[in-house]
């Protein structure tokens, strides 16, 4: 076999491999849509999306409760995580002495690697009893517990993208501000943060995508009951938890509605991440 032949073959082969990511994405969309069709056809889109009644054994398949659960937990988690993460990003990019920053950064990044179930477990054992004590009712498995766990889980994502975008601002901008007599903080607040705004927003958006997709830790600390969350101390269920906890035992229409749950999740995340990636890209 001549080496030119090998070269030509490998070029074609590489192209095939190159499109794998695209193919997987298409396959995911097709198969989840295919699984959803029976329920979408029979029950109807509106009845699934906007009904709060989820009693699979009685043929009631409304996923609005879970949608609300996901949204509420995510918003609360972001409310906790964003100030912390942006603070951390400023700390790492501007404030911390080099040596301390170099120790703190890997420490914060380690949070990404810790398995979801370990967060869930620590949440169950430490956080939930504390919250039960605080609220005086229930087991502590609640929206608040889920939001705190989730906030810790998305913190490193938002921190690292924000830090990158702060560091991407040309040093000249900062030096210009400092030369005009601004304090370091004024330079950060009036020059660096606005210049890096786009990247920071992208970080928050991408963090939102991660938060909505989180599954096992949510199942473990949120109580996983399909009821509309009425207070932060009440249990709830997320879209992800709905799939994980029921897919194993579901058949027929029930299974199909779980695929609809997955479809909603997929579309939601695609939309969120497209926005996030676009914001993060144009900055460069």
């Amino acid at each position, binding site marked *: 076999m001549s080496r030119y032949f090998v070269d030509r073959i490998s070029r074609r082969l590489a192209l095939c*491999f190159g499109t794998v990511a695209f193919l997987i994405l298409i396959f*995911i969309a097709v*198969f989840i849509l295919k699984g959803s069709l029976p329920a979408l056809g029979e029950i109807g889109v509106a009845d699934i999306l906007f009904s709060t009644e989820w009693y699979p054994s009685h043929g009631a398949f409304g996923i609005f409760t879970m949608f609300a659960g996901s949204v509420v937990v995510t918003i609360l988690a972001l409310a906790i995580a964003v100030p912390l993460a942006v*603070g951390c990003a400023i700390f790492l990019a501007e404030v911390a002495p080099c040596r301390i920053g170099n120790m703190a950064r*890997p420490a*914060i990044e380690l949070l990404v690697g810790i398995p979801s*179930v370990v967060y869930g477990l620590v949440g169950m054992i430490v956080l939930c009893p504390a919250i039960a004590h605080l609220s005086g009712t229930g087991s502590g498995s609640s929206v608040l517990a889920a939001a705190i766990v989730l906030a810790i889980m998305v913190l490193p994502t938002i921190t690292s993208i924000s830090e990158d975008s702060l560091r991407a601002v040309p040093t000249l901008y900062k030096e210009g501000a400092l030369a005009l007599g*601004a304090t370091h903080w004024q330079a950060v607040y009036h020059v660096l943060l606005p210049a890096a705004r786009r990247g920071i927003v992208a970080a928050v958006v991408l963090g939102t995508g991660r938060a909505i997709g989180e599954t096992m830790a949510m199942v473990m600390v949120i109580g996983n009951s399909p009821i509309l969350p009425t207070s932060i101390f009440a249990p709830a269920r997320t879209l992800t938890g709905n799939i*994980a906890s029921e897919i194993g035992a579901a058949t027929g229409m029930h299974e199909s509605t779980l695929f609809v749950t997955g479809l909603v999740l997929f579309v939601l995340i695609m939309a969120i991440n497209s926005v996030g990636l676009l914001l993060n890209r144009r900055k460069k």
Partner: protein
Amino acid sequence: MTKLSPKLTQKFAWGFAWTTGVIAVLVMLLIVGYVLVQGLPVINSDFLFSSPEGGLAGEGGIFSCIVSTLWLIVITMAILIPLGLGAAIYLAEYAPDNRFTHFIRYCVELLAGVPSIVFGLFGFAVFVLALHLNYSILAGALTLACLLLPFLVRSAEEAMKAVPYSQREAALALGATRWQATIHVVIPAALPGIVTGIILCVGGVVAESACLYVTMGGSAGMPTSLLSGGRTLAVHVFYLAMETNALDKAMATGAVLIVIIVIINLITRWFSHYLQARMKGETSHGI
């Protein structure tokens, strides 16, 4: 409202920044420390080398889970590495700078954001049901390979792009084909970066739970073939926590996971230092 002096404002702002930084590091230390302190004392050879027996008390150890996890790592990597490297080679070496390539890269980024449970649902529909693999290690490995693909592609592509273009030109000038240049020059030079990516993916296999929970089933028995179900360590933590009273054993299993993840982190950190050192060496000596 009286305005604070700029100096005082800066003190407050820096105080806030330090506080958030300290909180983030403390949270990490507390979680890791708590799991290790609670979990490590429960671990003994009996726990490591006996299999879970099921039941509400969560008797038994984690041996079959360790075996399942190892099987899963091997099979997932066997599928993932050729696919991921192939895609990375295409993107780094062959892809022209056009809209199609941008689109492919965008797909890789989008795929990286798809949640684990959606991959699980996909794997359940395709591998478990349509391909009749049932709940099995193979179904889990295929699903996981799809999930980890974008991460491997990204790190491998980055590693290959970091190889100076002049090295490729040198190979091509000597009459090598593009493929020979890739295999004999670019990949060896990019190897540390690629290996780092692969090690990180191993960490992903160990840490992942949601997509495996719905594609591998929960059978805690010793896996006998690729088509038998299995329970990885991470999924075992979930079962112990949700269905048994053995929270101490869940903690112990969690501690094993944390130890693995910390080791993987240290290895990749060491590797990237090595890489940087080598890069610096290269700039001063040629190759």
